[in-house]
């Protein structure tokens, strides 16, 4: 007979993990930091000694806000007006390019060959043209044909006060509505191609098994997309979308080439008028940085929230 198995029973207990090791600098870190400081310092010193430039920031400030000579009200001046246009371009551009991206992205993953071909043709065409060239082609060859046919300015002139008010919130100065819409379309059509690729990758990142589960439950194809694929795809798309939308904000400066009066265009005017090139450039770069940085923080927050929903 085998001896009885003796099992030593200990009191089950748990305790907290040992404290984490504190962060400390390794010699390699120190060297890296020193190098970084040296680089920054050197650039600063070169700028100070070699670039012979009399800095004068004071001429920028009047272009932020102005006081109406008649009423004395504070009003946005060129830079703020341009910034507002850039913000509108960015927000509406995200929406429109998002819609384009969803439609084309779905077409790219469609089971129908024709839809796939149309989607691919659009993406390939846009992705392989430099943005600057695209802006010009779009402005002179496409927008010039479409906009007069739409007769947007006339329609706006004849529109009721409520619609005019709504539109002015959306696009700003109604006299420049055609100008704005061209810029918006240009930006959206261009960015839509990249968003479409992100949407395609997002849809394809959702496991085939998920679609099969939806199919086997009798969900329609549309419902499978809407309730099963998209929610999961969106979560996978967030990091790439964040980059793309930041890119969109920066790309919005390209439409200044075709005289859309956004931040860069206005900044150019201020540069020429004040002759303070570097101040304006640096200031505007700072604004773009703040915009893009805020957007990336927003997306980080969204990602964290999306991650929470799973756990």
């Amino acid at each position, binding site marked *: 007979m085998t001896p009885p198995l003796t099992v030593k029973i200990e009191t089950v207990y748990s305790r907290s993990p040992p404290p984490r090791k504190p962060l400390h600098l390794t010699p390699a870190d120190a060297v890296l930091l020193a190098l970084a400081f040296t680089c920054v310092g050197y650039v600063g010193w070169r700028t100070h000694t070699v670039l012979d430039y009399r800095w004068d920031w004071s001429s920028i400030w009047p272009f932020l806000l102005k006081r109406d000579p008649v009423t004395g009200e504070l009003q946005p001046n060129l830079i703020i007006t341009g910034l507002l246009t850039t913000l509108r371009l960015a927000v509406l551009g995200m929406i429109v390019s998002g819609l384009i991206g969803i439609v084309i992205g779905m077409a790219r993953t469609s089971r129908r060959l024709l839809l796939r071909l149309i989607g691919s043709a659009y993406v390939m065409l846009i992705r392989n043209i430099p943005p600057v060239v695209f802006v010009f082609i779009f402005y002179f060859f496409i927008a010039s044909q479409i906009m007069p046919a739409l007769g947007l300015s006339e329609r706006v002139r004849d529109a009721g006060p409520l619609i005019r008010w709504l539109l002015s919130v959306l696009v700003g100065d109604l006299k420049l509505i055609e100008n704005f819409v061209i810029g918006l379309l240009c930006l959206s059509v261009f960015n839509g191609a990249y968003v479409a690729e992100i949407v395609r990758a997002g849809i394809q990142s959702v496991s085939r098994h998920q679609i*099969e*589960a939806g*199919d*086997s*439950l*009798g*969900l329609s194809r549309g419902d499978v997309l809407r*309730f099963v694929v998209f929610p999961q795809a969106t*979560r996978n798309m967030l990091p790439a979308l964040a980059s793309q939308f930041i890119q969109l904000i920066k790309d919005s400066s390209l439409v200044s080439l075709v005289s859309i009066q956004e931040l860069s265009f206005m900044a150019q005017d201020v540069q020429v008028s004040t002759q303070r090139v570097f101040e304006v450039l640096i200031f505007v770069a700072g604004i773009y940085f703040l915009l893009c940085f805020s957007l990336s923080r927003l997306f980080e927050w969204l990602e964290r929230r999306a991650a929470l929903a*799973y756990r």
Partner: protein
Amino acid sequence: MSDQRQPSVASPVQTTAPFIEMRGVNKWFGQFHALKDIDLDIARGAKFVICGPSGSGKSTLIRCLNRLEEHDEGRIVVDGTVLNEDTHHIAAVRREVGMVFQQFNLFPHLTVLENCVLAQVRARKTPRRDAEERAMSYLERVRIPEQASKFPGQLSGGQQQRVAIARSLCMEPKVMLFDEPTSALDPEMIKEVLDVMGDLATSGMTMICVTHEMGFARKVADTMVFMDRGRIVEAAPPATFFSQPRSDRTRLFLSQILSH
């Protein structure tokens, strides 16, 4: 050509017209011939267990029954509906057929309850309140009503698979397909899933299970089907199947999986 095929396999409890009928079904993946001349009749209320070595076509066979795979030749009829390109037919069949997968395939972004409610509301147009009620009753049947508000990622594999079963049952299918439902589970969780499947069999559900759980098969199945290289090699009631397999292939397979 049909004369060359093995005799069609009929379930012992067959009464009138078969509930599911497969005739001369062939399926290829590229050059690979996955299903070869499959003939199979399954009666309402039957419990089929399909076994065979991996790559023998078991999963493909049941996946053809709700058209997750398209068969290339032959005829499949489910409860009087012919499966073909017609999307209405496909939808009609999928309404009748529930499926449980090896990897559970729960929707990770929805709670357990929402997993069970979604298809009821969208595909069956059940009012949400009724759908939730039914979902809860099936979650009770699979013994995890307390997990209803959790996300699938918070559950163990066994719990997830039971939710998957409840999700399928919510659609009140006439037949349930199980595609290796316990293969991805840790050993201590296999039993809880098999118990639920046993209950379901007792309730009279038509079931077609691809599984290697031979204990379960002996207890529940009324017909054992052995497949090899895309063919149905043998089909028999479990008593004969386990004690007197007709083919050498079956005997070899059984000796391999029953030896441990």
